[in-house]
C-alpha cells in the first residue's frame, strides 16, 4: 500500500515509519481518548511518558542556534561551551514525570525567554489527566 516510487535524487526524506520520534508523538498526543467514551470501567494504569520533551526542546533550540551561528566560520571564531542550564533541565526533564518538576521547568523557560505556546498548556494539563486512576 505504501507509495514506493523509487526516485533519482529525491528532495524529500521519506523515512521508514517504525520507531520515529514523530510517530511516537502522534501515538501519545493524538488519536481518540478513551475517557470520552467510557467513564465507568476505565482501568487506571500508570503511564510513563516524557512530557518534558517539549520544554527541553525550546531551550535547547535557542542555544543550539546561538552556538551554530557562532560556529559559522564567517569570522573564524571558535565554538563556545554549552551552558549548564540546559543540561540541568534536560536531566530533570528526562526523569520527570512529576508535574512539579515540569512546572518549574516551564517557569524557567518563561522567565528566561518569555515565550508562550499552546503546546505548553497541553503538556501542563496532560500529567494531571493521566494521574487519575
Amino acid at each position, binding site marked *: 500500500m505504501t*507509495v514506493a516510487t523509487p526516485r533519482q535524487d529525491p*528532495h524529500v526524506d521519506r523515512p521508514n*515509519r517504525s520507531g520515529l520520534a*514523530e510517530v511516537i508523538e502522534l501515538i501519545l498526543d493524538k488519536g481518540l481518548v478513551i475517557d470520552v467514551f467510557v467513564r465507568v470501567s476505565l482501568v487506571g494504569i500508570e503511564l510513563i511518558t516524557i512530557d518534558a520533551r517539549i520544554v527541553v526542546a525550546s531551550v535547547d533550540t535557542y542555544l543550539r542556534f546561538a552556538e551554530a551561528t557562532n560556529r559559522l566560520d564567517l569570522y573564524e571564531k571558535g565554538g563556545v561551551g554549552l551552558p549548564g542550564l540546559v543540561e540541568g533541565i534536560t536531566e530533570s526533564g528526562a526523569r520527570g514525570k512529576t508535574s512539579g518538576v515540569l512546572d518549574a521547568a516551564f517557569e524557567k523557560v518563561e522567565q528566561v525567554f518569555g515565550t508562550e505556546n*499552546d503546546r505548553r498548556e497541553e503538556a501542563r494539563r496532560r500529567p494531571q489527566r493521566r494521574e487519575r486512576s
Partner: protein
Amino acid sequence: MAAPSEGSPQVEVACYVYGVVPASARLPEQLPGLSPGGQVSLIRTEKIAAVVEGIPLGRPLGTRAHLMGHERVLDALVDAGIAIAPMRFGAVLSDEQVVADELLTPHEEHFTALLRDLTGRTQYTLTGCYQEESVLREVIAEYPEIRELRHEISELPAEQAYHQQVRLGEMIVGVLEQKRRGDGADVLDALVPYAVDVVVREPAQADGVVDAAFLIADERREEFDEAVEECGRQLAGRVRLRLLGPVPAYDFMPGQ
C-alpha cells in the same frame, strides 16, 4: 461477540484497546502486540470491532517496546487497507465485556460514521525544517543587529556570554518565524488541493517551516507524493522536507 468474563473482583489482566475498525475487518496474520507473546484480537458488535490485547495489570505502560508495539499494530492495519479510528496510547478497559458494552455498543453509530469517512483514506504527515547553515547565513546577511551581537559575543570569554547567547538565539528564532510564514504558506498552498482534509500545526521547533497532517484518498497518493517532491525541489538547499506515511488518521479524530 466476546465471551462474557466472570468479573472477578481482582482483575489481573486488562484489555488494551488499539482502535476501532469495521466489523468486516480481518486482522493480518502474525501481528505481535504490546507484550511479548501478546495476542491481538477483535471484539465485534454488529457493525464495528475493537482491536484489543490482554495485558497484565500492575506494570506501567509506556516503555519503548510498548510504544513500538502500539504503532506496529496500527501500521499493519493501515497497510492492510483497513479503515481504523486509532485510540491514543494507553487506552485500557477492565475486560472484553466492557469493551463491547461500554465502548462499542453505545457508540456504534458514531464509530460507523467516523470509519465511513476514513475508508480509503490515510494520513500523511509533512514536516519541514530549515537547513541550519544555509538559513543562518541568510539571517546573518539580512540582519545587521544579529551580525553585531555575534561579533560582541566573539569578543567575550565563553562563560560571560551566556545571556548574549540566549539573546542571539532568540533574535534568530524570531527571524525564522517570519521566514516560516512565507515558506510554510507556499508549501501548504501547493499541497492542500490534493487532500480531503488538512490539519496544520505550528511547527514545534524554531527551525520548523511546516508541520501539517494531510488526509489523502488512496487514489491520489501518487499525485500528492509528486507534489510534495516538487515542493522539496523548489526549496532544495534551504529547507528539508520529511514525509511520513501512510499512518492512521491520528490527527483527524474528533475531539482534538
